[in-house]
């Protein structure tokens, strides 16, 4: 195909795409208008029904909790699949961790901020994961924040400390408890004769209190464990591939 033919084809295709795009945009509802019936209902009833003032968490862990179970197991399967794909192959050998060539020269301008921010990041992560009923995030955000704290340690050039803080056996256990805990909360509801993942814990009397929300903070806590462990495991696998495993 000559450049000229290509240009003609591109122009025709581009004009068609632009026309279709313009047509689609013209049919959109107005900016900021939400035409569905579900949003206003949730906004009106969620705090009264769940006693959680974090309505996003109420939606994620209560109204559509079943979807969230599925999402959590997607991450679980992804982390498990990654550790299978990145396992050490027969013709690969692991170099000693004290090997000088594994030492990345990390300047102090990176080390110092990374280590200073590690503590606050852990604190914010735990706060987000354990207060889903009152803040607009929850276990996923909190879990990743916790994983980020370990990534900061890694960025400070301390891969060995990173590995010592997150041994694979511990990560596997935490990940399993996190993913399993969520599913088990649903099963407890079933055992009590309620629908799967029904909110069987007392909701608390004051909406917005730390003790409010019933199963919402519990589920969020388990999601936080699962997400943190999964992301640390993923980064750990990549780090090990890069720094330790070599082709012989």
């Amino acid at each position: 195909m000559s450049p000229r033919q290509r240009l003609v084809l591109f122009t025709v295709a581009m004009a068609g795409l632009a026309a279709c795009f313009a047509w689609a945009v013209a049919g959109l509802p107005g900016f900021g208008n939400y035409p569905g019936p579900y949003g206003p209902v949730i906004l009106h009833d969620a705090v009264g029904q769940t006693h959680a003032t974090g309505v996003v968490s109420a939606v994620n862990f209560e109204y559509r909790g079943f979807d969230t179970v599925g999402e959590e197991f997607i991450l679980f399967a992804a982390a498990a699949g990654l550790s299978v794909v990145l396992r050490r192959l027969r013709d690969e050998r692991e170099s000693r961790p004290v090997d000088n060539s594994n030492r990345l020269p990390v300047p102090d301008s990176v080390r110092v901020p990374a280590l200073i921010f590690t503590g606050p990041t852990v604190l914010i992560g735990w706060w987000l994961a354990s207060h889903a009923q009152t803040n607009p995030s929850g276990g996923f955000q909190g879990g990743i924040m916790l994983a980020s704290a370990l990534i900061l340690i890694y960025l400070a050039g301390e891969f060995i400390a990173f590995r010592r803080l997150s041994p694979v056996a511990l990560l596997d256990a935490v990940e399993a408890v996190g993913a399993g805990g969520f599913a088990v909360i649903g099963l407890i509801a079933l055992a009590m004769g309620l629908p799967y993942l029904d909110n069987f814990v007392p909701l608390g009397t004051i909406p917005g209190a730390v003790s409010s929300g019933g199963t919402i903070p519990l589920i969020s806590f388990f999601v936080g464990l699962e997400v943190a462990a999964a992301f640390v495991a993923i980064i750990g696998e990549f780090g090990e591939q890069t720094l330790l495993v070599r082709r012989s």
Partner: protein
Amino acid sequence: MIEILQAVMLVMVAAGALAVTRARDRVRQVLLLSGYGLLLAILFFTFQAPDVTLSELTVGTVVLPMILLLAIFKVRRGERGREE
């Protein structure tokens, strides 16, 4: 007021996306991607979605660039190893 912020952020996100695709050096591209994640997080914030903001902030600016950097480092070391 908020509409102006939203419009500014939409334009900046579009510019950021273009910058990421135009970068030639792989490491520079990852750093731009990280900055793009930050812009996207601010965009979500201006559209009043703090939960998505926090997710994007951590996944888009920390975890994803980290994974990509590690992969690039591994590939580079493999290339060096073959040259030797």
